[in-house]
């Protein structure tokens, strides 16, 4: 046993505690804070070898797990999601407007709880046994998987026809309006992605923050702006978690589908938690919003935590997600010891984070009741703009404003918001298939 073994539990708890403000302050992403901490750690330890892995691994595991469980709260109650929880906003807001905001958060947390059981019992044993072989086989095919995801994204958006009226061109055009806006959003977000990844816009190397302004603009700002403009206030909220009723079948099925979607996103490069949530939602194949929320809770947890754990699988050698990238400069996994250290920290911090869900939700609900959703949204908006400016400067603000314009399109015209994910999918897919450079030259970015 290592001499630093006693550090594991306190480090995991410290990580969990730090994840609470990261998860609850809208716009503040765990990777922003992790990036800053990693930079600090590099400076402190010089050659990056002075910090014991028993401190680093559980600390980061605690942060990621706590964040993945608790970031449901701003997504459901303030409509301020990160990219991985974007799909919880709409059903969550509906529940909030019916006085069931706590219900929405708890339901999503059930999915996270399901995923926390699946990770050590199913996914971890599978990761240790079959994953290295699967990775070897799938690796040369990653690019077409990405194109298939894009094709499915575009094809699976169905039009919403007018509820009544005769068939004909008018009906067709009315229904296709939202589809056309969806395609336009996809193209614009993709173009923005090319600019962010390939144009020298000044902030790309600052503390791992190159996607922050785009993600905040695309996914977080639009709903907050809508909250401000509409001025709708939620009714008094039911605040008893015991009234949440869930069918066990929905929990099991939603968790399994979410784990499949999140696992897919965690395993394949570039595919993000939002895409995992999208695939999980489709796999659930149910109109019931509770099963859907459960699947989203499971998907984002498996995406964040699963992606991080993959880094420690012996013989696999992959880094998925910002957490693994940042830790890879501080820790080198050699044996299963590091894997199980991370797994234990995930289990511990996950269980405690679940206990924090209800009290933290009630705090935010009280805040909304006291100050009003409009005021809280305004504060959240100011915090986000401040964060983006502090981390990426004026260039970042410009990108955020552009992204906000694109992110507002699907909300105003009733199209699907996930088309905004083209910001990362399209440039990466083009790049992996070998024609990214031609597009970049064509756009005059290089």
């Amino acid at each position, binding site marked *: 046993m290592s001499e630093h073994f006693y550090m594991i539990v306190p480090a995991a708890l410290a990580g969990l505690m730090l994840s609470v403000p990261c998860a609850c302050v809208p716009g503040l992403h765990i990777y922003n804070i992790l990036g800053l901490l990693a930079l600090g750690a590099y400076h402190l330890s010089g050659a990056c070898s002075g910090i014991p892995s028993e401190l680093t691994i559980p600390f980061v595991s605690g942060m990621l797990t706590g964040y993945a469980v608790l970031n449901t709260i701003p997504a459901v109650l303030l409509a301020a999601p990160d990219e991985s929880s974007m799909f919880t906003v709409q059903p969550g807001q509906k529940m909030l407007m019916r006085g069931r905001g706590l219900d929405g958060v708890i339901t999503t947390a059930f999915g996270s709880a399901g995923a926390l059981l699946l990770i050590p019992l199913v996914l971890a044993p599978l990761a240790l046994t*079959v994953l290295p072989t699967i990775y*070897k086989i799938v690796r040369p095919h990653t*690019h077409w998987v990405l194109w298939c995801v894009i094709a499915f994204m575009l094809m*699976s958006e169905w039009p919403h026809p007018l509820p009544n009226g*005769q068939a004909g061109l008018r009906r067709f055009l009315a229904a296709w309006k939202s589809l056309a806006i969806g395609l336009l959003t996809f193209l614009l977000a993709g173009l923005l992605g090319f600019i962010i990844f390939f144009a020298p816009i000044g902030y790309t190397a600052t503390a791992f923050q190159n996607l922050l302004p785009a993600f905040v603009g695309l996914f977080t700002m639009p709903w907050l702006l809508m909250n401000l403009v509409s001025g709708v206030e939620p009714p008094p909220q039911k605040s008893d978690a015991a009234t949440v009723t869930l069918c066990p079948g929905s929990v099991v099925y939603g968790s399994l589908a979410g784990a499949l979607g999140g696992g897919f996103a965690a395993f394949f490069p570039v595919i993000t938690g939002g895409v995992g949530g999208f695939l999980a939602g489709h*796999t659930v194949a149910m109109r019931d919003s509770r099963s859907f929320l459960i699947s989203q809770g499971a998907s984002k947890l498996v995406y964040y935590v699963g992606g991080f754990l993959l880094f420690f699988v012996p013989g696999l050698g992959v880094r998925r997600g910002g957490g693994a990238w940042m830790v890879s400069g501080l820790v080198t996994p050699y044996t299963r010891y590091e894997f199980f250290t991370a797994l234990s920290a995930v289990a511990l911090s996950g269980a405690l984070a679940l206990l924090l869900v209800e009290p933290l939700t009630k705090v935010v609900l009280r805040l909304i009741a006291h100050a009003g959703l409009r005021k809280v949204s305004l504060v959240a908006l100011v915090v986000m703009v401040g964060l983006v400016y502090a981390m990426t400067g004026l260039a970042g603000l410009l990108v955020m404003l552009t992204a906000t314009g694109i992110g507002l399109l699907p909300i105003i015209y009733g199209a699907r918001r996930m088309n905004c994910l083209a910001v990362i999918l399209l440039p990466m897919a083009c790049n992996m298939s070998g024609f990214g450079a031609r597009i970049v030259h064509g756009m005059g970015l290089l």
Partner: protein
Amino acid sequence: MKGIAHFTAGVAVASCFPAAVQSGASGNPLYFVLGGVAGLMADTLDFKFYRFFYRHDAEITPDPLAPDATQIADALAEAVAQASRNGRPFRLRLNSIRLGPDEWQSYRVNFNLHEDEVRVELGPVVDTGGSPVSDAVAECPVGIAKLEVPVHLEYFADVRIDAFEGPLFRILPVSGGGVRLEFIPWHRSWSHSFFVGACCALVALMLWGRLAGAVVMGAYSSHILLDQLGYLGSNLFWPFSRSRTPGLKMQHSGNAFANFYAVWLSLSLIFLNLARYASLPDEGGLLSFRLVFWSALLLPPVWALLRHLPK
């Protein structure tokens, strides 16, 4: 089946072609994307195009302020009678009842074939996801009307109408009296036929070559065959046939387990095909994955057996 099941099945079909796998490994995504797209194409044709041009002869639009179940039942019975009297098909749309941005008055239509009557029952107010949002009951919750002629059904006797667009029925007079009721006739008609699959394959063949044509034909057929496991069936042999071939009734298209299972099996097949052509040494991990795949094939018979056990 749901879209994701069809799409993954299409990609799985593409993975069965060694040349497609080799092409994918060397950086060409075409065949897999074509497989997925062709796998979902039949529903795309129906839901994104054809439905908007399928005209109806009459529509029932209940009053959102005072929905009356009896009026709906009477209108349905009248449509059946009119089709029978005129000896011509009659297309009837049942519209949904929208009460607010996310509130719909649900109602259920039931054709009671033993009593020759149609029963309409107003249900709870629901959201777009179909979940009840209030316990309020409408003033005239149940309406019953006698059917003048016997009705033959090709789908379920019970239809629920809540959010978005309501269903469309095609009421067809049949020989010997009576009418046959076709549920959403614009769906699974010509688009779900092998002939249209072959046409798409021909286009792919001309654009990208024989392999693309074969992938498209296989993926398109996988859609038709998967749908055939359900209740509604498809018009498999259009243009030689005008009606749907009844489905095998093994599962409902929205069944969560069936969809999840189809996705899982397709993903497993894709992986095993990639492994087969990757010429890697057979390692323990791959062996255990094969075990999972082959044992998963046993699930449907076990499930079917369990379904038929007495409760």
